[in-house]
């Protein structure tokens, strides 16, 4: 059952990813990317990390995609289509990506992974939270605090950059 769901999810993800990078209408490309992100959240549910799936759904589907749609609506004329790159360029880049993908796949499939068998330990959200806030060995409190400062700085920077000339012309 899980196997069939995984194959359906991967098919959806790959097909919509291709549609997202080749679509000529940018709003449709954003919506196709939304489908890919929801497929990834489903994959997190399948692999039993419910917390990550919730984060993926709220941050990506709820935040970033809405930001994308707003910026597309602000910037683009809705009827205008993206220009198609020339056939030679598409073939060249497609060939390069295929070569890269096949080299990576060959490396992956020839590497023996030591898969840990029969581990049925369920992951609890409380464990993740304790790991984030522990300052003992293997704790993640420092990057956790640094990332909060990074988010604050990015927020202030985004406001100042997007306000642009009005802020700087005053003085």
């Amino acid at each position, binding site marked *: 059952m899980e196997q069939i769901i995984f194959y359906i999810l991967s098919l959806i993800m790959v097909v919509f990813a*291709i549609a997202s990078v080749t679509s000529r209408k940018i709003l449709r490309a954003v919506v196709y990317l939304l489908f890919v992100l929801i497929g990834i959240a489903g994959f997190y549910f399948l692999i039993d990390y419910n917390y990550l799936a919730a984060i993926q759904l709220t*941050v990506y589907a709820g935040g970033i995609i809405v930001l994308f749609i707003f910026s597309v609506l602000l910037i*683009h004329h809705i009827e205008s289509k993206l220009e198609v790159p020339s056939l030679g360029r598409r073939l060249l880049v497609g060939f390069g990506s295929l070569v890269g*993908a096949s080299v990576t796949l060959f490396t992956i499939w020839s590497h023996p*992974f030591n898969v840990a068998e029969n581990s049925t330990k369920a992951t609890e959200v409380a464990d993740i939270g304790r790991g984030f806030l522990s300052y003992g060995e293997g704790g993640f409190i420092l990057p956790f605090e640094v990332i909060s400062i*990074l988010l604050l700085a990015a927020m202030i920077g985004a406001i100042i950059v997007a306000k642009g000339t009005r802020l700087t012309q005053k003085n």
Partner: protein
Amino acid sequence: MIPGVTIYEILTVTTLLFFIGVYGFVTRKNLISILLSVELMLNAVAINFVAINKYLYPDMLEGVYFSVFIIAVAAAETALAISIIINLYRLVTSVDVNVTETMKH
């Protein structure tokens, strides 16, 4: 781990997603479409962290932490990039990479 699915199949899917992102990153001319491709690549890498954590070290949680950090950095990066793009559109009324060269002077 997912019953009946090996780690090789998961890594295959994420590799395909990553290189689809690379294809879009190189072929697209529009800045927002380039940002979409970057999101695709970042997500493929986040799945890799989670899958390898779950399959090889199921008692640890490090892959989950790193995925959360990737998602946070991606959110910050997207917000900043979109604000820069909107500001750029005000200056040159275009968001194509071959038109925006105001920093070159």
